């Protein structure tokens, strides 16, 4: 068996152990714990305040911009990883390429900033 598969075998083992551990503990808790349900207990927990309406509330759409900016920069990071690993091998041309890539996206960040898309309110 090559090292590659072996290293991921450890990962797999962690997954399995984690899943089994959580499942077993939760099952035990479910079996052992006493259950006395009252309406008071089922209410949404609001730090002691009286809850108003459902726990599910709609959010204003402008928060979407944050999620989207996150995705855009996440994709940018994806490109940064392989570039950083091979930084020396890629050399000057690689540096220029990445600089152009980041510069173009920086225009987007500047635009978002100036258009108040980053204001959290």
């Amino acid at each position: 068996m090559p090292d590659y598969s072996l290293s991921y075998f450890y990962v797999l083992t962690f997954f399995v152990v984690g899943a089994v551990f959580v499942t077993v503990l939760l099952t035990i808790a479910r079996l052992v714990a006493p259950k006395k349900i009252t309406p008071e207990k089922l209410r949404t927990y609001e730090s002691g305040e009286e809850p108003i309406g459902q726990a599910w509330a709609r959010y204003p759409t402008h928060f979407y911009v944050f999620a989207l900016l996150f995705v855009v920069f996440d994709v940018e990071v994806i490109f940064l990883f392989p570039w950083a690993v091979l930084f020396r091998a890629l050399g000057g041309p690689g540096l220029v390429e990445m600089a152009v890539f980041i510069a173009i996206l920086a225009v987007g960040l500047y635009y978002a900033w100036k258009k108040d898309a980053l204001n959290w309110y």
Partner: protein
Amino acid sequence: MTLDFVEPVVFGVLAAGVIVAGAAVVLINRITAAALLMAFTFLCMAGMFVLLGAETIAAFQVLIYVGAITVLILYGVMFTPQADRPYALFFQKQTPLAGVVVAAAAIPVLLLSFSFVGAVPKPGGDDLPALATSVFVDFAFPFEVASVLLLAAMVGAIVLVKRDEDSEARR
């Protein structure tokens, strides 16, 4: 010690995970659960990539799909008014007809896909250097165009959801 039997077993588990979770995404009533199950499907796909020896792609799958795309979907869910529907989101009257059409298209394609042989990738790992070289040396031009694409998408998203300056002023 030989562990070669592990690989087919892991593949089977992952494949079952993708298919069952994928079907559940479509069939389940609760939209949040559907979104999280979709993340699980993506995670199983990442496992598939690991099996194929493409660990970098697997890492990207986790970062982009399990991370970013799921966040995006969950945001989308939070913007949607929740109504308790008596039915699932999909699968209504047209189901049988749609099933026939999809089967008619998918089964021949499925059968044909078995004709791709002789290209079994060797699990090896350490695919990052090869990937980086191809992205930054061979695919340099599409790579730069992709950054313009990201910029265009960002500007587009902002202009479509940004609060109106006029309505803001009126408030």
